[in-house]
Structure formats: C-alpha cells, structure tokens
C-alpha cells in the first residue's frame, strides 16, 4: 500500500514538475519576444506620429501602419499615442482616418460580446475613434452590467452624445458605482447645455432621495447657473443626505436664494448639513451669516465647529474679529476652536478648506 502511494505521489509530482518547467520556459520565451515586439512597433510608429504632430500629414501614414499590426497591438498603440502624444485636433483627424478600418470595426463589434473584457476593449477603443454612428454602441456600453466596461466607456461620452443618450445617462446616474458616476458626470460637462436641460427637468419630477442626490451632484459638476438654481429648492427636503448634498452644491451657486438657503441650513438638525452649510457660506462670502457661525462655534459636532471657524476666518475683517472675540470668550468649545483656526497660516486654512 505504502509503495503504491509513494509511486503515485512521486509520479504525479514528477509529471507536474516537468509540465511546469515546460510552461515556464514557454512563458519566458513568449514574454521576451513580446516585449521586444512591442518595443520594435513603438519605434516603427515614431516617425509617423511625428509627421502627424508636425502637420506633415493628417495621420495617413500612422493609420496605414496600424492597419498592418495585430488588432490588439494596434488598439493599444492607438490609444497610447492618442492619450499621451496628440492634441484634440490631431486626435480627431486620426480617429476619422482609422474609424472605418477593418481592425477598428472588428474591435468595436466586440462591444456586443458575452465576454466582459472584449466589451471593455471595444469601450476603450471607442474613447479614441468615437463617431456619430457609434452612439447606439456607446449607449449600450455606458450601461453595461460590468462596471469596468462602464468606466472604460465613460470617456467617449465627451466626444459625441445626443439628447436621448444624455437623458438616459442622467436618469441612470444614481444606479452607477460612484467612480463610474463621477466619470460620467465629468464627461457630461462637454454637453453642459443639453445636460442642464435634462437635470432641470428631472429635478422637477418626483424622485427618490438617492436620485435627487445624484442629480444635485451632476448640477454641481456641470456648474451651470440654471442647474445649480434648480437644486436650491431641495434645501428643505426631509432627507438629510439630500440636504447635505445640496449644501455642498450651494458652494458654487451664487444667487440670493442660495445664500438664504445656506444660512438656513446652518441651523439644520443634521451635523453633516450644518458643516457643509458652513463651507457654503464661506464660499459665497455671506457676511450676514457671521452671527450664526459664531453660535455654531459651540456646536456639539467638532466638524461643525471647525468648519464654522474656518468660515469666519474667510469672511474678511468682520469674520476675523468674530474669531478673535470667540478666542477669549468663556465658552471653552468656541475659544478652543477659535484659537486652533486663528493660529493656522493662510495656506493651511486654504488647504483645510478645500
């Protein structure tokens, strides 16, 4: 019995070991060749890239060379060149030249593959070669079930997006992973007028708190006065998360309504809202909020006291005076925080306020 076990175990290990050495040798050879091949390709493409950058051609030579490469290599090289070496115009010109090349068509056709990594490759290439006719593909990829595909496709939104796609993206923002949502919101800045219309319309319809939060964040990212103005009415929303999101957005909303809303939110029942409101009144330079900020210096939350003190420090001489008064007041909480913030340098205050 022992002999049998010994033979089986020994034989299995020897076979396995020989097989592993074989795989290892093959991997070593493949890896060395692969690295040399990629280096040779990059060197070969260099003169064509230079011709495009110097305006000697529109990218015809580079497009021709890419067509001769294996599809995966061509895609990787194109993306690398476009992202790190070309300006927007050169990139657009090259995209137009390669868009209808068979290798590009085949890669983009992977957008409907069952394998997520193939869809991701299509989404990545779309970031460079996106055209009007790719909107249906982009629409599918930005709402893919795999977050990595959604993330890869987000950059292409900035190039082309029609009203229907923008509406679809905005409506589904709250369901996305936070990183993907932020990528999509940033890409929508390239379509700010259309996106603003959608945000304003969507905020008027009845929504769940998480949807409102996503819309308010988008309004803040777009930074358009109309979109930001549409968020102010949610400052009195019953959900604290919504009020906190609005308070954060108010920082860039320069209107009388926003100022009033920020002042009211300083008295909110939730500390996150009060802290965000303190930042908002600082950003909006609301001198009238100084008494409320002084009261907030003995708030039960450390963060509200800290934000309020920083806000006072940013409100000119009147704010500094209020801070100095608080520093010598009998209220221990207020004086401690006033001393802390009063002792910070200007750059430290700016850093901490960011």
């Amino acid at each position, binding site marked *: 019995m022992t002999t049998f076990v010994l033979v089986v175990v020994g034989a299995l290990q020897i076979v396995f070991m020989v097989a592993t050495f074989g795989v290892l040798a093959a991997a070593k050879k493949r890896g060395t060749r692969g690295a040399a091949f990629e280096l040779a390709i990059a060197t070969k493409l260099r003169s064509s890239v230079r011709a495009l950058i110097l305006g000697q051609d529109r990218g015809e030579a580079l497009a021709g060379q890419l067509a001769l490469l294996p599809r995966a290599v061509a895609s990787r090289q194109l993306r690398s060149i476009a992202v790190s070496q070309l300006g927007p115009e050169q990139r657009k010109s090259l995209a137009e030249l390669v868009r209808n090349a068979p290798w590009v068509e085949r890669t983009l056709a992977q957008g409907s593959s069952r394998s997520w990594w193939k869809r991701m490759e299509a989404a990545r290439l779309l970031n460079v070669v996106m055209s009007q006719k790719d909107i249906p593909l982009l629409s599918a990829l930005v709402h893919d079930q795999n977050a990595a595909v959604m993330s890869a496709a987000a*950059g292409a939104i900035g190039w082309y997006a029609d009203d229907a796609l923008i509406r679809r993206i905005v409506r589904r923002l709250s369901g996305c992973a936070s990183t993907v949502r932020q990528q999509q919101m940033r890409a929508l800045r390239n379509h700010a007028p259309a996106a603003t219309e959608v945000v304003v319309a969507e905020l008027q319809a009845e929504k769940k708190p998480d949807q409102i939060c996503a819309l308010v964040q988008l309004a803040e990212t777009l930074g358009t006065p109309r979109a930001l103005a549409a968020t102010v009415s949610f400052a009195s929303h019953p959900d604290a998360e919504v009020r906190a999101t609005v308070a954060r957005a108010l920082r860039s909303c320069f209107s009388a309504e926003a100022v009033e809303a920020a002042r009211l939110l300083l008295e909110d029942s939730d500390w996150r809202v009060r802290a965000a409101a303190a930042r908002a009144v600082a950003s909006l330079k609301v001198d009238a909020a100084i008494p409320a900020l002084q009261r907030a210096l003995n708030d039960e939350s450390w963060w509200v006291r800290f934000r309020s003190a920083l806000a006072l420090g940013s409100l000119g001489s009147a704010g500094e005076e209020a801070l100095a008064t608080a520093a010598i007041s009998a209220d221990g909480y207020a004086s401690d925080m006033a001393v802390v913030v009063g002792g910070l340098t200007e750059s430290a205050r700016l850093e901490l306020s960011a």
Partner: protein
Amino acid sequence: MTFPFLEVVPWASAPISVMAHVVIVYMLALNSFYALLLILSVPQLRRHWRISDDVNLRTLRAADVIPPISVLVPTFNEQNSIVASVLSFLSLEYPRHEVIVVNDGSTDATLQRLIDAYDLFRVPAAYPSVISTQGVRGYYRSRVHAKLVCIDKVNGGKGDALNAALNAARYPYVLAVDADTLIERDALLRLARPFLLGEDVAAVGATIRISNGSTIQHGRVIKAHVDRRSIPGIQTVEYLRAFLFGRLGWNSLGGGLIISGAFGLFKQGYLHAIGGYSPGTVTEDIDLVVRLHKYLRKTGSRDVITFVPDPVAWTEAPVTLKVLSTQRERWHRGLIATVLTHRDMMFNPRYGVTGMVAFPFYALGELLSPVVEAVGYVVFGVSLLLGIASLKMALVFLFVSLGYGFLLSLWAITLEEISFRRYTTTGDLLRLLWFSTIEAFGYRQLTVLYRLKAFPKYFRGDMSWGVMTREGPRAKAAVTGATT
C-alpha cells in the same frame, strides 16, 4: 532493523505509526488547500490582468474621479532614511493624496531631519481626537509641500502611531505604509482599481516584494533583481508564493485575513468604527483585518476586503538568520494572539466564509503547521531509527510536505513569469528556481523552529517587537520596531 528499546516498549509502535499517518494527512490537506488557492487565483489574476492598462491609468489620473487617500507613515528612529522615504511618498502619482508622518517618540534626529528638509512649522491641532493615543507633542505642516503633515508624539508603538495619523487623516481612504517601504510610483492608481470595478471597498491589500539585490534610485526600485544570497533570495520566492496566489486566491473566498501593514488601503470610517489599531499587538495588521471582517459581518455591510496583485511595494528582507528568526517569531506570535483573541469566529456561521473557511485555515493551518511539521520530522526520524516506519513512508512524508511545497513555489514563479515579469533576466529566473529548490533543505526547518519559539514567548506574555536591522541604501542605521 529495530532497536532493543522497542522490544521493551512495544506499545510505542502503534501511537507513533498513527502520528506519522496524521502528519502525512495534515501536510497533504494543508498543501492541497494552498493548491486550491493557486487554482482560485488564476481567474482573479486574469481579471486584474485584463483591466490593468497603462493608458487607462493615465486617463484615470487625469480624470480625478477616484477617492483621495491619506498615506499614514509611522516612524521610529529612522533619521537616515526618513527624508528620502517621505519624498517618495509625496511624489506618488495620484490625483489627490496627503502624507501624514508620525514621529513615534524617536530618540534620534528623525523629527529634526524632517523639520530641516521640509521646512516644517508648528500648527494647532486642527483634528478631532476620535481615537485616544499617547500624548501628541505637536503638529507640523510644511512650507514646501502642502500635502505633508507631521505629528510628533510620545512613543506608543506602531499601532498607536497609526491611530494618531488616523485622527489627522482628512480623506475617506487611508493607506498604512512602513517608512522603509518603497512604493512604485503608480501603485496608488493601481490600488484604486476595485473602485473602477464598481466594488464597495472596505480594505484593499496589495503585493509586497523583496527589494534586496534590486537597483534602487531616489527611493524607487529601478531594476528588480533576485538577491544572490540565499536568505533574502529564498524569501523572494516565499513572498511570490504568499502574494501571487496565497492572498489573491482568497478573493474568491470572501477575502483573506491579512493585509500587509507595510502597504494596505482602508476605508477610514471603518477604522474609526472599530476603534483603530490595537496598540498592544505585535502584528497590528492581521488583528485589524480580523476585527474589520467581524465588524462588516455584524453590521451586514456588503463592502469587501479585497486584494489587488499589481500595485507593488518593495521591502527589505532580513539577511541574517538572527533577524529572520526575530521577524518570523514575532509574526507567529501575532498570529497566535489574534487567533486566540478572536476564537469565537472559529467555524462560526455568523461570520460567513470568513468564519467557516478563512479563520479555521489560519488557526488549524498557518498557526499549527510548524507544530505538526516539527512533530513530523521528529516522528519520522524516530520511526526510522526504531524501524517503526519504513523508508518509503518517510519518503511519502517528504513528498507531501517538501515536494508539494516545491511545486507550489514553482507555480508561483510560473505565474510571475506569465503575468508581471518583474525579474526580466534569465539569471534572476534561474536564481528563483535555485532558491525554491534549496528552500526545503535547512531554511524551511529553521523557519519552523523560529515559529515554534513564538508559542512559549506568547504564553509568557512577551509582547516585544525585537530588533530589525536593515542594510539597504535608505537605512544604514539600526531600525527597531516601535517599542511598547
């Protein structure tokens, strides 16, 4: 051949034979579990490999959509290396990060070197003290690097220093690093990959590699090499095995129990919720991750503890047996403390896969393996001498323990060659193969012995860190772990 002794005590034959069989079954089961982790790591590696893309990383960096990170750096008596270390942390590629250095009561010129190099000035304590720590003597900011914060405090140990840094951290994610860790420039960007995969992340672990033998310039590993000396060389193989499939395989099983204290990302809110690091432990990292697992389970959180293989940090391995002994004994003592402290997790379905698989593996596998292996050497030695076990039986033991271990090392090297290929020369590959071969003859038995030393030390209540001496370019002086 049998010895007369056996004829006097014939009853010894049966129990020794049973023990020999138990040891063989145990080693077979343990190594088979490692093999399972290896198999589970392959799809994980493919997944990360597909998404890993330099162009994508550049886009990510420009997009500023990934969460900001506070880098926490506890230091103790690191005057020779601290300035270069901090500079390397400040120059990491990431859209938004801050570096919080904690001088944990150094008795040398660590703080003064920082003050001089970064033009530090005292600022008021503009941070809430959420977690209590040893007294803070002062907070400093830099006139030349807005991202740098320095805290000078009374010595309280690494966990205590990390807690002080945690109190001052402004960003939602914190990265705990050792001051002597060399982090690759784009490691933070790669560490952020789980966010792109849409995962809600409680903690992310990453790969640690051995820097001995590599070319290092300005706090970065320029060219990776395997050290020619056997002690650091064998550790290079060990680390490949541990990180490339040991930790990656756990992703498929609900996350492992270890995120290296030298390089691990955590959601700040969770660390505050569990009370931060335990100052009294000698391995603060495993204790923290176990408590985090517990907390996530208890609160029903869906956030994950995951491992990403390609962000790399480099650490210097011990080059002498004395230092290696101290390190391995301390690691094992920490493991014993953690397992005994959290023994309620053992086979507890309330903690899901962690309670039913991960924790029992660490308790019955990692913790007990040196004991069983040592018993195996003794039992087979005695059995052979007394003629109880045959030579064939002893060979089976060697095959299932040492042979199996060698095969796992071989596969770790193969995975490395297929995926990351950090060691590009044939000489390095041959050295890895050589060290994986000789590991079983002497080195492995010594590490078993070192780990065994942890048991009496733990039960004596000894919680000292011991002394770690460094020889690398950034640490010419002796560097000790923080003393408690």
